[in-house]
C-alpha cells in the first residue's frame, strides 16, 4: 500500500507553448506517439523542444504534434507522470514533416508543481479526507498472503489468529474488534457470508485493493460500523484477463486461485473467481501433555497438531452486460463455497480434540446494477442484492477424550468430546444496498445510501429431534439510511458532511412449557427495536501539494448483531440484553513527502486518534472459559497514535516502518451493584495489543537473466509488544501474551513483464514461538512456493 505513496504523488505541468519564432524559412512538423512498453498510449505527456519554447501535449491516444519548426537539429524531451524522461535528437529538413515515436519506461516521478491529473486508484483513496489506508493488492499478487495477513501490515490494524490456515481470526482496528469493524466487498456488506468466504480464506489475488477506514466511515459504505470499515475492491477494470496461481508449502498447504474475466465487444461480460485452500496445519507446538489416564502433565513436549485440517473451496461467477443504454453494468452472480475445519483445541491449548469439526457452505445468488447519468447528467445509481442460503454445522459425536500424544479413551454410550451435537443452522440472510449519487457541479455533490438487511436463523439437531419444536425464532431486520454531501472548494480543500439513520428490529421468542406436561410448548414473544442517528464530518486541506492535513469526526453507532444477540452456537454465547454501542471518533492526520538529493524519496504519515466509546460491546471469555460472550461496558476511551515512514531509492529499493500505539482505558467508575470507586478505573483494557508495528524492505533487480524479467527480494518484520491477559493493575504473578517478533522473507522472479511469476517465501524465519491469544501457539518457520500466470488484453 505504502509503496505507492512513495512512488509518487504525481503532478504534471500543463504548459501550453506557443510558436514565437517568426523566421521565414520553410518549416516542418514533428508528430508521433508516446507509448508504454506494453503498447498502451501515454496521454498528456509533455513533449518539449529543448532550447525553445515549442512544445505539445500528447492526446488521449498518446499522439502529439509539435508546431512547425524551421530546419535544424533539435533535442526533443518527453516527460510524463510516472514515467522516465526521454530525450531524442532529430535533424529536421526544411519543409519535410517527420515522425518520431517515444516509448517511455515507467518510473517513480514526482514533479513539484501544480495540477494533478493522474494517480492510481489506491493513491486517490489515500488522498481522501478520511483516515484511510489503501493497500495496493496487485503488488502482493505473487505472495501467498490471504487478506487477513495483508491487512495485518496496516498501521492501526492487528489481526489475531488462533492457529494456522483457516483458523478463526480476530480483527482489531484502533482497539475496535469483532463486529465493531465492518467488512465490505465492492461496497457490499460481508456480514452474511458465513465461514466459507471470509478474510482468513480469501486470497489476496481476488482483490485489486483493500481500503481501511479508521473511525470515520464514508456514507457509501452503508453500515453501523462503530470503529471503522474495510472495503475489499475486486479487480474488474480489466476487460479480458486471466490470473492463475498455485502455491504449495509447509504443513501440506495447497492454495490455488483463478481469476478470469472476459468482455465481448457487444458488452457481454463474464467474470470468474475461484479459489481453494488446503492445509493439514500439522505444525509442531510446545505444550504440556496430559497423561490420558492420570491427567499428570508431561511438561513442554514438542508435538504436532494432529486434528487441524482445514480446507475450503469457493467459486464466484458473474455474468451480464456492460456499457448498455439501460445499464452501465448489470451482473447476475452466484457465490458457491464450502469449508471444513477440524477443531484441534478449545479456548486453551490443554483442551485437545481429535474428532470434533465444523463445516459450512455458502450458496449466495447476487445481483449488481449500475447506471450512470440516470435521467440527468451526474446522477448515478448502483443497486446490489444478495441472499445467503448457506448452512453451518458443528459435528461432535465421538465420545472420546484425546491427549496431545493422540492417545484417547473411548467411553461407553453416546457422547461427544465437548458436547454431543450435530446442530445445523442457516441464517437466511438477505441484503439489498442502493446508492444514488449526484454531482451538481465541480463544487457540490450529494449521496444517498440505503442498506436493508434481513436475518432469520433456523436450526435443528438431528440427534435431538424432540428439541426441534423448542427452536426459538430469531428474526432481525435492519435498515440503514445514509445521506452525504461533499463540498469541494477547490482542489486543495474538500469537506464532507454526512448523517446516518439506523433502525433495527429483532424478534425473539422464548419457548416454555405452559402446563408442565411433558412436551407441551408455548412461546413468549419478545421484540426489541433500536433506532439511532449518527453523523460526521471530514475535511482535508493541502497546504502544498506535498503536505496534506486531514481531520474527521463521527458519532457512530453499532447495533448488536445477530451473532451477539443470539450467539453462533460454537464460540459465542447469545446475549439478548445488549444495547447499541456508541462512540465519538476523532481523527487528525498529516502526510508529507519530500526528496533528498533527487533520488532519495521519503514520505511521512501520522495520525492521532481519539475514541470515546460508551456501552462498549466487548468479547470476554464467558466465565466457563470456553465460549465468548458479548457485554456492554460502560465507557472506554482510546487515545492513539500511528505513524509511518517510507523511503525509496529510484526503482531499486523501497522500505518503510509503521507503528501503532493505542492507550485503551477503562473509564467505568462504578461497576453495577457496587458503590465503591472501581479499582479498575483508568486501567488499561486487558488482552488487547497496545503497541505494535511493521517494517518492510524490497529490492528490485530488473533485467536479471534477460530483459523484461525482474527479481525482487522482500523482507517483512512484525512486532507486537507483550500484553496482559487480565487487568494489568491486578495481581503480582500474572499471565501474559508474550512479545511477538516475526521475520518473513521472500524472493519473486517475474518473467516476460510479469506474465510468468515464481515466488519463494519463508514465514517466521527465526522460528519464533508466537501467540496472538493466550496459550494458542501459531505456526513456526514455514516455506512456500507460488507459481502464477497472468495475462491481460
Amino acid at each position, binding site marked *: 500500500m505504502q509503496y505507492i505513496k512513495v512512488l509518487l504523488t504525481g503532478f504534471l505541468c500543463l504548459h501550453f507553448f506557443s510558436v514565437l519564432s517568426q523566421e521565414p524559412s520553410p518549416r516542418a512538423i514533428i508528430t508521433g506517439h508516446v507509448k508504454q512498453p506494453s503498447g498502451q498510449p501515454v496521454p498528456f505527456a509533455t513533449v518539449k523542444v529543448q532550447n525553445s519554447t515549442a512544445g505539445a501535449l500528447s492526446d488521449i491516444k498518446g499522439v502529439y504534434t509539435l508546431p512547425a519548426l524551421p530546419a535544424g537539429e533539435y533535442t526533443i524531451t518527453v516527460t510524463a507522470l510516472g514515467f522516465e524522461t526521454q530525450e531524442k535528437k532529430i535533424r529536421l529538413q526544411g519543409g519535410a514533416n517527420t515522425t518520431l515515436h517515444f516509448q517511455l519506461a515507467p518510473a517513480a516521478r514526482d514533479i513539484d508543481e501544480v495540477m494533478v491529473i493522474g494517480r492510481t486508484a489506491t493513491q486517490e483513496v489515500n488522498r481522501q479526507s478520511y483516515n484511510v489506508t489503501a493497500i495496493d493488492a496487485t503488488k502482493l499478487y505473487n505472495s501467498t498472503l490471504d487478506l487477513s495477513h495483508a491487512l495485518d501490515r496496516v498501521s492501526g490494524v492487528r489481526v489475531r489468529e488462533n492457529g494456522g490456515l483457516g483458523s478463526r481470526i480476530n480483527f482489531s482496528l484502533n482497539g475496535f474488534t469483532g463486529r465493531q469493524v465492518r467488512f465490505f466487498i465492492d461496497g457490499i456488506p460481508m456480514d452474511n457470508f458465513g465461514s466459507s468466504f471470509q478474510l482468513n480464506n480469501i486470497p489476496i489475488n481476488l482483490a485489486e485493493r483493500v481500503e481501511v477506514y479508521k473511525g470515520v466511515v464514508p456514507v457509501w459504505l452503508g453500515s453501523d460500523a462503530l470503529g471503522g470499515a474495510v472495503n475489499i475492491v475486486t479487480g474488474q477494470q480489466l476487460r479480458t484477463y486471466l490470473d492463475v496461481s498455485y502455491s504449495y508449502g509447509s504443513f501440506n498447504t495447497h492454495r490455488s486461485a483463478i481469476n478470469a474475466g472476459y468482455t465481448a465487444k457487444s458488452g457481454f461480460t463474464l467474470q470468474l473467481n475461484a479459489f481453494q485452500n488446503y492445509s493439514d496445519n500439522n505444525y509442531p507446538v510446545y505444550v504440556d501433555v*496430559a497423561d490420558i489416564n492420570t491427567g499428570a502433565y508431561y511438561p513442554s513436549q514438542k508435538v504436532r497438531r494432529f486434528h487441524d485440517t482445514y480446507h475450503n473451496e469457493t467459486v464466484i461467477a458473474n455474468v451480464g452486460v456492460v456499457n448498455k443504454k439501460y445499464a452501465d453494468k448489470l451482473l447476475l452472480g452466484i457465490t458457491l463455497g464450502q469449508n471444513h475445519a477440524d477443531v484441534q483445541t478449545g479456548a486453551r491449548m*490443554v483442551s485437545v480434540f481429535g474428532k470434533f469439526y465444523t463445516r459450512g457452505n455458502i450458496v449466495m445468488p447476487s445481483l449488481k446494477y449500475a447506471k450512470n447519468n440516470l435521467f440527468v447528467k451526474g446522477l448515478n445509481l448502483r443497486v446490489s442484492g444478495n441472499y445467503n442460503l448457506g448452512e453451518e454445522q458443528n459435528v461432535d459425536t465421538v465420545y472420546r477424550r484425546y491427549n496431545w500424544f493422540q492417545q484417547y479413551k473411548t467411553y*461407553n454410550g453416546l457422547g461427544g468430546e465437548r458436547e454431543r451435537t450435530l446442530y445445523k443452522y442457516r441464517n437466511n440472510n438477505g441484503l439489498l444496498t442502493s446508492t444514488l449519487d449526484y454531482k451538481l457541479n465541480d463544487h457540490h455533490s450529494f449521496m444517498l445510501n440505503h442498506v436493508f438487511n434481513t436475518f432469520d436463523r433456523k436450526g435443528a439437531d438431528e440427534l435431538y429431534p424432540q428439541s426441534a419444536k423448542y427452536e426459538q425464532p430469531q428474526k432481525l431486520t435492519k435498515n440503514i439510511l445514509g445521506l452525504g454531501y461533499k463540498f469541494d472548494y477547490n482542489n486543495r480543500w474538500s469537506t464532507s458532511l454526512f448523517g446516518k439513520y439506523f433502525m433495527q428490529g429483532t424478534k425473539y421468542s422464548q419457548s*416454555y412449557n405452559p402446563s408442565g406436561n411433558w412436551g407441551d410448548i408455548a412461546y413468549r414473544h419478545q421484540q426489541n427495536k433500536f433506532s439511532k442517528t449518527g453523523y460526521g464530518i471530514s475535511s482535508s486541506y493541502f497546504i502544498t501539494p506535498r503536505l496534506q492535513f486531514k481531520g474527521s469526526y463521527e458519532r457512530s453507532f453499532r447495533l448488536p448483531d445477530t451473532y451477539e444477540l443470539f450467539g453462533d452456537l460454537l464460540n459465542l454465547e447469545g446475549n439478548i440484553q445488549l444495547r447499541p454501542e456508541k462512540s465519538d471518533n476523532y481523527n487528525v492526520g498529516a502526510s508529507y513527502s519530500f526528496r533528498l538529493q533527487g533520488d532519495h524519496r521519503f514520505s511521512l504519515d501520522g495520525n492521532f486518534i481519539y475514541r470515546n466509546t460508551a456501552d462498549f460491546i466487548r468479547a470476554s471469555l464467558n466465565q466457563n472459559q470456553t465460549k465468548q460472550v458479548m457485554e456492554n461496558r460502560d465507557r472506554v476511551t482510546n487515545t492513539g497514535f500511528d505513524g509511518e515512514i517510507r523511503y525509496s531509492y529510484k526503482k531499486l529499493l523501497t522500505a518503510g516502518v509503521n507503528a501503532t500505539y493505542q492507550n485503551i482505558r477503562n473509564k467505568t467508575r462504578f461497576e*453495577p451493584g457496587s458503590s465503591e470507586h472501581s*479499582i479498575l478505573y483508568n486501567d488499561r483494557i486487558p488482552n488487547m495489543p497496545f503497541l505494535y508495528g511493521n517494517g518492510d524492505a524490497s529490492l528490485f533487480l530488473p533485467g536479471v537473466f534477460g530483459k523484461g524479467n525482474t527479481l525482487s527480494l522482500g523482507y517483512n518484520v512484525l512486532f507486537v509488544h507483550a500484553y496482559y491477559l487480565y487487568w494489568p493493575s*491486578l*495481581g503480582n504473578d500474572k499471565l501474559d501474551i508474550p512479545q511477538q517478533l516475526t521475520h518473513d522473507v521472500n524472493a519473486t522472479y517475474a518473467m516476460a513483464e510479469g506474465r510468468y511469476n515464481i515466488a519463494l517465501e519463508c514465514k517466521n524465519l527465526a522460528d519464533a514461538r508466537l501467540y496472538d491469544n493466550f496459550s494458542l501457539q501459531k505456526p513456526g518457520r514455514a516455506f512456500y512456493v507460488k507459481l502464477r500466470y497472468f495475462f491481460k488484453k
Partner: protein
Amino acid sequence: MKNVTRLLLPVLCMGTLWTACSKDEGQPGNGGEGGGQGKTKYIIASTPVASTGVADYLLTTDNITQGAISTQGNGKEQDGTYRYYITHRNRFFSLLYGQGNPGAVTTYNLNAGGELIKVSDFQSETVQVHTTMNDDIVTMKVPRSGNENALVFRIDAQKSQIAGEAQVNIVHLAGNGERAHFTWATQAGNKLFAPYMSIKGAAPDVFGTSFPDSCWVAVFSYPDLKLERVIRDNRTSYLGAYFTSGLVQTESGDLYGFSGSSATSNGTPTSTKPSAVVRIKKDATEFDKNYLFNLETASGGHRFANQTYFGNGKFLLEMYAEKGKTSGKVKFAVVDVTAQTFAWVTGTPADITSTSRLCNLVAGDDKTIYAGLTDAGGSYVYSFDATTAKATRGLKVEGGKITGIAKLTY
C-alpha cells in the same frame, strides 16, 4: 439456541447457588513443603468487580479478622474465573469449571517462608461436584442433556493426579424417564453418598422436573464407585441443589440432609413439600421417618439455600431472604439439627450481593466459620459465631468479591 440455553443455565444457577471447601479437619497433612512448623496462612480467592477480563486472584494473609488487603499489584493470577477451590491434606486445589472442555487443575501449598507456591498442574475434566473422600478428592462431571453418563473421578490429593474413574448411567439411575443430576457428594464411613435431583434434561426446560416432591441419595462403594443402592424419601424435594451440598455427616455418624424445596418446572417452583432437614441414621439404609426439621416453620416461611457445618450438630445456613422464594438474595441463620433450634444471624450486611458459599472456612472449633460477604459497599470476611449467632466484620478485600477462604499450615 438450545445449546446456548444449556450453557447459560449453569451460569444462571451458579449466581444463586453454592458449600464448604475448606475444613480444618485436624488432620496435619504433610505440613507443607516447609516441613510443618505449625504456622498458618489464610488464602483468599477474589474476583475483580469488572464484568470482563476477569481472573480469580489468590491472596495470602496472616489475619482475616481485621485490616484490608487488595488485589492491586498483589496476588497470584489464575487463568479465568469459575474456579472452584478445595483444600485437602494441606493442599489447596484450584479446579476449573470447563464446560465440557478438559482443563488444568492447579495444586498449591505453602513453602517454608509461608508463600503460596504451585506444587503441580494436572488435567481434569470439567468439575461440578467436588468433595473429599479419604485421601482423595472426588469430582463428578454430570451432563445435563444428551450424554446419559456421568463421569466420577478419584483424584489422589498427594500425587495430584487421577487415580481412577467410573461411569454412571444417570438415566438408568433415575429410572423415571428423567435424569439423575448429582447435586453433591459426601463421605459417610467408607461409602460415597451422592444426593441427586431429577431433571428433564431436554430443551427448553433442562432443569425442570415432573417429580418435585421426592428426594434421592445414591450410595456408592469406594474406591470402585459401584452403585449400591438409592435411598429415597417423599417428605421433601431433592437435597442440596446444583453446585450445592445438601448432605453432611455429623460426629455421631448420622447424616443430615437439607432440602430447599426448590424443584421447578419451567422455572417455577413446583414442590408441595416444605424446605426441611431430614436424617439418615448411621449405617441405616433409609431415611429416619421420625425426624423432620421444617425450616420454613422455624424461619417464618424462608427456604434453604446453602449450609456450612460448624460441628457439634450446628450449621450455618443461607436462607433466601424473601419468604417462599428459591432464588435471590440470602440471609444467614444458625441451626442446631439435633436440638432443632433456629436463630437468625445478626451483624451481616442487609443487602448481600454474593457470598463465598462454595468455599467458606470452617475454623474447627465447632463454633466459628469464616465467610466472604459482598455488598454494594465492598467485600469483607465475616466470622460467624455458632453460640451467639452473631457475625463480626473482619478483613476487607478491596476491588473484588471474595469467592473463597482457606487455611494452610507450613
